[in-house]
């Protein structure tokens, strides 16, 4: 199919792959940005992602409506976020450890619930053919865009605006910058973080729904290759700014789709090694941008991760 395009097929396939592969990163990183701006780290989003994926798939299969599945994934994410927030609100509890526990629990629960869902095919989310004007099938294929991607693209500036200008955004940032100031102004730090963590979990759940209902569009235990966790470190790269999350997600999506793009162009590379590209890229970026001497620029003060 790429013969007419020759090597131009690679950037085109990467564009399409970028749009597809970046969506889960986008949703999880936006969610985690909200959570971290409130001063808390949720490392359990990998588990939330998988749980969202399996709940979306299950609901879509049984109800026949993929959008109900997305809603279910959102609800599951809210619930899992609430579990994290409630556990972390207790004294003497370690956020990072709770995140790890929820990551393992969410993964286990998703695998358990997903056992009967490996075989059946649930209805997938529809795609918008933005490239239908073209005669080239490769162009049309690359520009088949899922509505969730567009939602995510719109959500990033909306969240940035909300954090910057709205009252709720201000309260959220306040709890992230100084617990004492938030307390002095009469806000319940734990309640703000509860909502921020729940919303973050909900968005991650939608990211999982995208995985199981659109790309790759099936449920399997190898569905997520660490997108949830990589997105958490992506937030550090994006300096806790929702707009930057969008750009960073696109870069990661492009990196993640490099392999399939090369393969479609007939370049043989080890797919195992290519699967590690996003993780390796994250580590490289963290290596370059982190510094032991100063806290990361733009990091919420109450946050103890991105330093």
């Amino acid at each position, binding site marked *: 199919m790429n013969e007419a395009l020759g090597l131009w097929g690679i950037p085109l396939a990467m564009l399409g792959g970028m749009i597809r592969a970046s969506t889960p990163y986008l949703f999880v990183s936006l969610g985690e940005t909200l959570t971290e701006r409130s001063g808390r780290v949720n490392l359990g989003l990998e588990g939330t992602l998988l749980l969202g994926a399996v709940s979306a798939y299950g609901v879509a299969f049984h109800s026949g409506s993929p959008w109900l599945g997305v809603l279910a994934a959102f609800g599951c994410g809210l619930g899992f976020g609430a579990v994290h927030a409630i556990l972390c609100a*207790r004294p003497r509890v*370690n956020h990072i*450890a709770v995140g790890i526990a929820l990551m393992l629990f969410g993964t*286990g629960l998703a695998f358990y619930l997903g056992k009967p869902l490996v075989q059946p095919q649930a209805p997938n989310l529809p795609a918008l053919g933005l490239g239908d004007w073209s005669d080239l099938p490769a162009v049309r294929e690359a520009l088949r865009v899922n509505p969730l991607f567009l939602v995510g693209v719109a959500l990033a500036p909306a969240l940035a605006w909300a954090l910057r200008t709205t009252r709720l955004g201000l309260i959220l940032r306040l709890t992230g910058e100084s617990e004492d100031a938030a307390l002095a102004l009469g806000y319940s730090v734990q309640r703000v973080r509860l909502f921020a963590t729940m919303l973050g979990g909900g968005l991650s759940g939608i990211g999982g729904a995208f995985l199981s209902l659109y790309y790759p569009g099936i449920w399997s235990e190898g569905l997520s290759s660490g997108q949830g966790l990589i997105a958490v470190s992506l937030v550090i790269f994006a300096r806790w700014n929702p707009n930057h999350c969008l750009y960073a997600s696109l870069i990661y999506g492009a990196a993640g789709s490099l392999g399939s793009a090369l393969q479609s162009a007939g370049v043989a590379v080890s797919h195992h090694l290519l699967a590690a590209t996003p993780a390796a890229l994250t580590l490289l970026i963290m290596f370059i941008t982190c510094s032991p001497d100063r806290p990361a620029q733009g990091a919420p003060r109450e946050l103890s991760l991105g*330093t």
Partner: protein
Amino acid sequence: MNVRAALAAPLPALSLLAVELGAVVASLIGFAIFLAFEGASPGRVFVDMVDGAFGSWFSVQNSLSRAAPLMLTALCTAVPARLGMIIIGNEAALLMGGLGAATCSMVLPPTAAPWLALTLMLSAGALAGACWIAISGLLRQQRGVHETISSLLLFYIGLSLFLHCVEGPLRDPASLNKPGTPPLPEAHMLSGIGGSDVHYGIVFGLIACAICYVLLEHTSFGFSVRVTGGNLKAARLMGLPVTQLCLLVCALGGAAAGVAGAIEVAAIHGSANRALYAGLGFSGVLVAFVARQHPLAIIPVAVLLGGIQASGGVLQRRHGLPDAAVEVFKGILFISVLAAETYVLPAMTWAERKRQALATPTPPPAAEELLLPAAPEPGDIVEGVP
């Protein structure tokens, strides 16, 4: 963030036991509710689980064989934790260890003396695991990269590297439907103890836990590690070589997990292949947290978790539950353990706690500065140091 509460063990032994028992009871209740939702009878499931884990000589052997790698991988989290680091990339260290051992076996002539071959293979595994986890320590010390995240990212990289090697360059052309490295010669295999199915891995696990205990609790090295874990600035003021200590504990933990991988290859799988990636590293994280990062407490917890893993087959056969049911139980157990301290301790009487507080010195203040070195907390021990 109260990191110290979860990492070190500042509570007296009796409260600790109460916390742990409370957590186990809570997780059993949680799992029972889950089972009831699934339409299984919790009581019968629990009876069968105990039966499947420790009910017969066969199941005891099975549980012990599964406990051996868990002891070693748990050390990969527990040892760095005493320095205040949360390392969770144990799985990658295990895979690297298995890869190292298999590669070493390929290089050695099949006629090499068994003790020499096994020593070299286990050493290669330990070295590979140590290097892999030491990267996290190095990244943290040199660049301030958070070790939890870097170790997890390194897990994904390590997994890809492992699969690439065993199904690519190191693949045995004869292994068709189960790609992997060439099968180990008989002389390179680790045998069972006294003709039983329990392999010598359990001995290595016990010895490693004991060594780590002595090293951490009864040597000046261990004291330095604990000082650094308790208060980083105090350690720096005392002139402790923090970077070296950090690298050493990471390497030590990684070596333990690497040995686990080497043993799995030499005693169970007979070659490095995809089957080695079975979640033993992540279960090790759970064991370390349940054991509250104490090397000796790891031993019983690993046996318990090995039993839980072994009972998964019974759940499948007798109750039709998928094997992931065990994963759910482990997740509930993990969450209960983390939450237990905060719920169980207030439930203990005030007088009891006061008596224990008098009997034991108060724990040092929280070690937030480990994760946030730039921001000193008021009330730190360092404030009193001139």
